[in-house]
């Protein structure tokens, strides 16, 4: 059989990307340069107002707190995911454990968030337990704070961080660690110098799979955020629906996309540099 030519391979993918990624992005970018209609929508006239309105210290503050919250979530998620993935990859019950990582997906995302409301509330299970053991005298306000937003986002993204890490650790040849130890490295040093560089792809994927959705998060701060847990996603939704300022929602979206892209580019630049001896 004749080999298919390159366009045949790339064609469907390119069309998909063009239709469902590039085109919508262009529409959003285009909208940001139009004049807003009084009751939503846009008039046909060109205008830079939406971009001028972006230079607002309030938005800058929201962008900054979004960045902080997303980074905190990423660090927290990765800190939990790495040991978990390692344990799973080394375990005899791999399949069972992997299955357990995926099980929560059987329940709808919103229902899982409501479950967290039941756990973290002032009269929730966590506070009741702490009160029962006498560790606290008054219920602690866990829910509706920035901390609860970061915690629940961590919970949400954990499986996405574990799976790529697991995949790369699973492929790693652990006899290399033994070799390193035979050559005099301590266990910690062997893992740091031999394991980590070899699973770099998995680490990158897991960090990005957390950071990107965290930056664009909307539902979690909306449902369990406090009076100041306002992220860029919420701001965009508000401008689009409540304030009916479509161009501003569009320019904020473009800002978020740029912020995310910049993050990825910087991240890939730093994570691709040569680190240690190449190990084959």
């Amino acid at each position, binding site marked *: 059989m004749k080999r298919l030519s390159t366009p045949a391979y790339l064609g469907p993918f390119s069309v998909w990307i063009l239709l469902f990624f590039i085109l919508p992005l262009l529409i959003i970018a285009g909208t940001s340069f139009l004049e807003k209609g009084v009751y939503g929508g846009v008039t046909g006239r060109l205008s830079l107002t939406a971009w001028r309105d972006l230079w607002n210290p*309030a938005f800058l503050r929201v962008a900054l707190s979004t960045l902080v919250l997303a980074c905190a979530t990423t660090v927290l998620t990765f800190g939990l995911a790495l040991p978990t993935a390692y344990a799973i990859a080394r375990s005899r019950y791999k399949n069972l454990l992997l299955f357990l990582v995926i099980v929560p997906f059987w329940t709808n995302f919103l229902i899982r968030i409501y479950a967290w409301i039941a756990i973290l509330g002032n009269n929730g299970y966590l506070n009741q337990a702490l009160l029962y053991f006498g560790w606290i005298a008054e219920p602690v*306000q866990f829910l509706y704070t920035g901390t609860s937003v970061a915690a629940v986002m961590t919970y949400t993204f954990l499986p996405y961080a574990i799976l790529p890490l697991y995949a790369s650790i699973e492929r790693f040849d652990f006899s290399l660690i033994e070799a390193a130890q035979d050559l005099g490295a301590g266990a910690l040093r062997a893992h740091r110098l031999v394991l980590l560089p070899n699973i770099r792809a998995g680490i990158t994927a897991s960090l990005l799979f957390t950071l990107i959705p965290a930056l664009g998060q909307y539902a979690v701060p*909306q449902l369990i955020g406090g009076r100041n847990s306002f992220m860029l996603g919420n701001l965009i939704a508000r401008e689009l629906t409540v304030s*009916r300022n479509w161009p501003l929602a569009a320019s904020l979206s473009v800002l978020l996309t740029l912020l995310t892209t910049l993050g990825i580019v910087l991240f890939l630049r730093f994570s691709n540099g040569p680190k240690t001896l190449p190990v084959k």
Partner: protein
Amino acid sequence: MKRSRPWILLLLAFALVGSCGKEVPTLYVYNFTVYMPSEVLRAFEKKYGVRVVYEEYTTNEEMLTKLQSGAAGYDVVFPSGDHVSIMAKLGLLEPLDKTQLGNFSNLDAGVLSRIRFDPGNRYSMPYLMGAAGIAVNKAKVKAFEPSFTVFDRADLKGRMTLLDDMREILGAALRLKGHSVNTTNEAELLAAKKTVMGWKKNIQRFDAESFGKAFAAGEFWVVSGYAENVWKALEGNEPMKSNTVFFLPREGGSMYMDNMVILKSSRHKELAHRFLQFVHEPEVYARIAMHFQLPSVNRAADRFITNTPHYRLSDLDRFEFKEDLGPAVERYNRIWQEIRVEN
């Protein structure tokens, strides 16, 4: 020949589906979430041998955004007063044919005379009216003033929520100082902002979605919101229910009228008129008013209403309808955004 057969089958299937759709006329109703008892919809279907498709939205803004971005096919929509004006200005509404709506004569003349958003009810027929108030957990808050000033209390810090709704909350702050909830005066609005920023220090969050549930769970002791949401969340929770007080603030505030309108793009205008007329049949409207325990605006329905509403029509005398502010809404948007983002 062989290849074309699936296409023929597909065409046949479409033809079948198409003909099924034609047999039963269908009315597409677009309304707030659970804002009409399904028994009323079923009764209408039975009476006229039609089908009603009921779709839902959570806010006026969401509804308008969807209609503007091209959602089509709806016949009857339930916008609040200010959105009736907006939709009329945008040319989305069909003028009502009053000759088909004899039940207008059942409506409370006093209520109709207060309507500014649609003079003479050219486009809209009132459905239900009400106002947001404040629910208080008496077991935790022994004494309180029936006013929005309760949000000034630092001793309740972290135990209160305010509606995430700029017109409601700024309206409450404006009213507290004796101003109109529809003011466009910058100084009055800035004073209102200051009031709300003071409240913000004491609340845990702005919430327009789950305040009822959170209140019922004991999470918060003082929440601003709608009576029907609060009491609905308290159903089956007798101890909590007996500890709950719901009041409309003594200083008044903004109130709403939700209305039925027919879209210009509707393809079933006659059936839509019949639906509006049906809703205001005395016994039908009584069922609706009793279901939500909201004050009836249909005087002919009163004698069929056997339960007590959460508040009476006369309680709303000190409240003011929210009107469309036109371009001046920008000021509200800006101030509300500052409130949400500043610390």
